């Protein structure tokens, strides 16, 4: 891993308007927005796997989609190497697309049921005009199918998704993202729909295939998977990044109270390690027009006065360990 950044995210925001009923839109001037991603800045280094961990609804999927501009941000910039992709025109963006790909969460929904494996995996090659003929396409598809262990490729190429198991489908999704050798891949919960017994196979493949891509953004709600899969982990809560550090550091020396609570709550497959402690109170607040204070204030057991008045910034506390908390130092 080099320290050079492949992706630089600066002050990225995405607000979704909330639709109101007819009467309330007449009587109230206040506009409501879901602050899905709220002023987020970070870098993804060359050849790095960055884990983005958070509970459902914290904005991690939205952030992933913003990074490859599948949706438009409200404000902010994303630099791919030196190019600000938010300033690109439609056609310029299209020529950037082969450099950035996405693996979706649900292999039961992300694969077109009417297309064969050959067409599914070959589609990105055709769209980006990377192959000249049908036989060339078949050759490239066969090669990547070998890589994702769908062997012999000839046996799988002409199958439809319904003829594949969940694990095989997700391998097709991985092959589809990696077949054009992108520099950057967003993997949005790539294993959460699979049984734990088959997850490891997909994760191992993604590690082995690092030669075909440079960097991953690995979105997950499972800290235990991120801890082993990722070089660095960012913890997201209600649209903000709360803590970010090397995965060893964040697990061994968590600083933010939310990170601590997440680690505590993560179940351990070991009956002798049972714990009942939960250092958190209440439930996740609504992301609609959150007040200007620490997002975690209402659930934090150690909150101080300042936490209710000022939103903490993400600051480096040494060694690249970043944290957004008034309690530190």
């Amino acid at each position: 891993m080099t320290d050079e950044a492949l992706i630089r995210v600066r002050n990225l925001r995405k607000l979704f308007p909330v639709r109101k009923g007819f009467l309330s839109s007449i009587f109230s001037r206040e506009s409501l927005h879901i602050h899905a991603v709220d002023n987020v800045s970070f870098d993804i280094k060359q050849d790095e796997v960055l884990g983005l961990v958070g509970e459902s609804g914290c904005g991690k999927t939205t952030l992933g989609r913003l990074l490859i501009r599948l949706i438009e941000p409200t404000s902010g910039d994303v630099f791919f190497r030196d190019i600000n992709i938010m300033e690109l025109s439609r056609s310029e963006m299209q020529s950037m697309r082969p450099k950035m790909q996405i693996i979706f969460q649900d292999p039961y929904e992300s694969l077109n049921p009417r297309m064969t494996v050959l067409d599914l995996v070959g589609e990105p090659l055709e769209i980006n005009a990377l192959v000249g003929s049908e036989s060339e396409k078949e050759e490239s598809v066969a090669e990547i199918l070998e890589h994702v262990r769908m062997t012999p490729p000839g046996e799988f190429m002409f199958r439809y998704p319904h003829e594949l198991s969940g694990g095989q489908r997700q391998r097709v999704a991985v092959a589809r993202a990696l077949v054009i050798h992108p520099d950057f891949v967003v993997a949005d919960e790539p294993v959460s729909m699979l049984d734990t017994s088959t997850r490891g196979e997909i994760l191992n493949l993604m590690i082995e295939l690092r030669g075909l891509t440079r960097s991953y953004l690995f979105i997950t709600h499972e800290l235990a998977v991120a801890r082993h899969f990722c070089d660095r982990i960012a913890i997201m809560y209600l649209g903000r990044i709360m803590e970010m550090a090397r995965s060893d550091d964040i697990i061994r020396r968590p600083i933010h109270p939310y990170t601590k609570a997440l680690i505590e709550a993560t179940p351990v497959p070991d009956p002798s390690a049972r714990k009942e402690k939960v250092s958190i109170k209440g439930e996740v607040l609504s992301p609609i027009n959150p007040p200007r204070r620490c997002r975690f204030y209402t659930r934090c057991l150690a909150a101080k006065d300042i936490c209710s008045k000022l939103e903490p910034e993400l600051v480096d506390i040494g060694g690249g360990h970043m944290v957004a908390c008034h309690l530190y130092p």
Partner: protein
Amino acid sequence: MRVNVLEVSDLRVYYHTVKGVVKAVDGVEFFVEEGSSVGLAGESGCGKTTFGLALLKLLPSNGKLESGSVYFNGRDVYALDEKEFREKVRWKQISIIFQGSMNALNPVFKVENQIAESILLHEKMPAKEAIQIARDLLKKVDIDPVMGRHYPHEFSGGMRQRAMIAMALACNPKLVIADEPTTALDVIVQKQLMNLLRRLKKEMNLSLIVISHDISVLAELCDYLNIMYAGRIVEWGGINEIFENSQHYYTHGLISTFPTVYDEQRKQKFEFIPGAPPNLLDPPLGCRFHPRCPAATEECRKEPPPPMEQISRTHFVACHHPRGWER
């Protein structure tokens, strides 16, 4: 000696579909000691939910009970007719927390009314009284009783699951089946729910059956663990014995595939069980796990595994070549 509150023997449930007969539960022996919490683990499609539904005779119309007996507190409850079963067993003795609380609650009724409904179906009492019990139940599961007057969509995921628990407790059952009680919930909510289940079990002296694919949830909640594969129980034992001394290769695989957040070193390699669970329309001959088993022999391919063999007082396995244990 502790008494068994539930004893199931040779339970078989087959689904008759256009493609053929799906043997979802195929000869399951199962029991629950009074006051204990028993886990049922397995991958999706292994028959664990079907097993839970069969205990309450709530199978879908194409699911048939082919054989088996269920004794509850020493009484053969499968011998009861449907009316008696509904009046005396279902919900009064055995209840279930259904999987997917999002879909299990009726969106057009207030939560307290839904809980009261299940009480009124079983007890003769004024509706007002039932509502009061419903509110007490909500309080018991840490929901503000005032919320009872609200509709399910006004509840968060964790609260809906709590409401489902309250509903399962409505008639003071002895045994509660929790089918994937924390699946699709975030870890913090999951932790709170597990603490709640543990507390209720103690307070109300419940016995629990917890069905889950998530072996770490079962590790936290259960005293005993059954491992189910392709319609059969392949290993059963005390929770510590299963985790420390698993004998079946499937059990071992299931446990080792689960990453732990506390590992000192970062692993760059993940464990997995190769292949996929078999199609129960046409399960493999011999041991059903043999196509995925690292230790399969000719015997495993041809001969069905021996019946459950005893390893210790509370540990049984059905395998031709158990791991590290000499007969």
